[in-house]
């Protein structure tokens, strides 16, 4: 008589299907992940509590020295912006009219732009490595002082290029002087742009690097 063996149950589960699924997902996430664009201008962002996501933005980067740079994500937008700029402000900046189609194409490839218009010819006729070198070391920013504000014109042109469907982001270094940021904002309000997105990183509400202290003052003055 053969003994009746209770069937031994193996608790091990087949992992193959699980493995398939997880690798499928992994592939998906790897493929959809975008590389962080190489930052031409290094900026240390301030932190805030707000959590609004940024999309479709004409970004004005202000670095530590108060130089301003303009970045647009899409190549086509950049091309359109240059076209609009030439069209609207061609009289003001004759250098723009003299650009060759080749130079315009080169402009469209540059994500972060930070050159005064008087240098645009020279910069756009550089070759790849020369330009990279220039971008890393010598880019002096777009002028935005009240006398010759090119920044306002550029931003205006980017708005024309997208038919107003673009937000204006300001990405300031946390150590930059408020004065510079204010100047930029003033130039844009002159162009009837009143809404801005201040780009920040997300952190908790505590500001640990401040020290407490409470000193009263007895300034007594009157103002109008």
């Amino acid at each position, binding site marked *: 008589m053969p003994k009746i063996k209770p069937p031994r149950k193996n608790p091990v589960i087949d992992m193959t299907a699980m493995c398939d699924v997880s690798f499928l997902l992994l592939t998906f996430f790897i493929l959809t992940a975008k590389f962080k664009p190489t930052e031409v201008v290094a900026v240390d962002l301030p932190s805030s509590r707000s959590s609004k996501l940024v999309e479709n933005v004409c970004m004005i980067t202000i670095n530590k020295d108060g130089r301003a740079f303009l970045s647009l994500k899409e190549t086509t937008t950049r091309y359109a912006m240059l076209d609009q700029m030439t069209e609207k402000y061609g009289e003001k900046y004759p250098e723009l009219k003299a650009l060759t189609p080749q130079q315009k194409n080169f402009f469209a490839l540059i994500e972060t732009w930070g050159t005064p218009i008087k240098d645009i010819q020279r910069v756009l006729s550089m070759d790849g490595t020369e330009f990279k070198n220039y971008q890393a070391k010598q880019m002096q920013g777009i002028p935005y002082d009240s006398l010759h504000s090119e920044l306002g014109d550029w931003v205006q042109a980017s708005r024309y290029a997208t038919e107003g469907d673009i937000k204006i982001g300001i990405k300031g270094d946390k150590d930059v002087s408020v004065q510079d940021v204010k100047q930029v904002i003033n130039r844009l309000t002159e162009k009837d742009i*009143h809404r801005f997105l201040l780009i920040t990183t997300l952190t908790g509400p505590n500001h640990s690097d401040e020290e407490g202290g409470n000193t009263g003052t007895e300034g007594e003055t009157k103002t109008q």
Partner: protein
Amino acid sequence: MADIESSGGGGHGKHDGGPRSKKMSTRVDLTPMVDLAFLLITFFMLTTTLNKPKAMELNMPKKVDNKDEQQDVGDCQVLNILLDTLDQVWYYDGLQVTGLQKTTFAGDGGIRKVILKKIKTVPEECPLTKKGKKRDAIVLIKMLEGARYKNMVDILDEMDITGCKIYAIQDADPLEKEAIANGGSAKPIEEKVSQ
């Protein structure tokens, strides 16, 4: 199923009693592989979503020339906040530059408390507007030249946290700069009346 060692595979069945040939199972345990895959998935998921920059909205006012559209500002509803170059926050009530107090951005005892208090007291204590409405606190944010941008973001963040609805960013006027310069020594500033 997915383990390497199939427990005594030849133990029962046909090969009973025969020479125990080693039958290597071709099955591989995939559990660590799955672990790894999920770990990587988690990593990619988190990095793709957390990398996006966040933004804070700032609406600057349009220039209003029409007197009727301009809001009348009562002396008692105003709180002035000044940011200086040393990351300090100064504040005073009302439209007269007087009695500046120094504080910080610290979470609990800092400027937040001051703003919250102001928001609470203004509708109760201030006289009604000409149209008979209750007044709300108005915060005037003034930044000295050379103040860091970080502080501007911080104070705007405080506006968001405290829920202060009316605030304006302005330039500090000379009297206020003078008051801050003298603030540490608590020397009373001579009374000045412009016009």
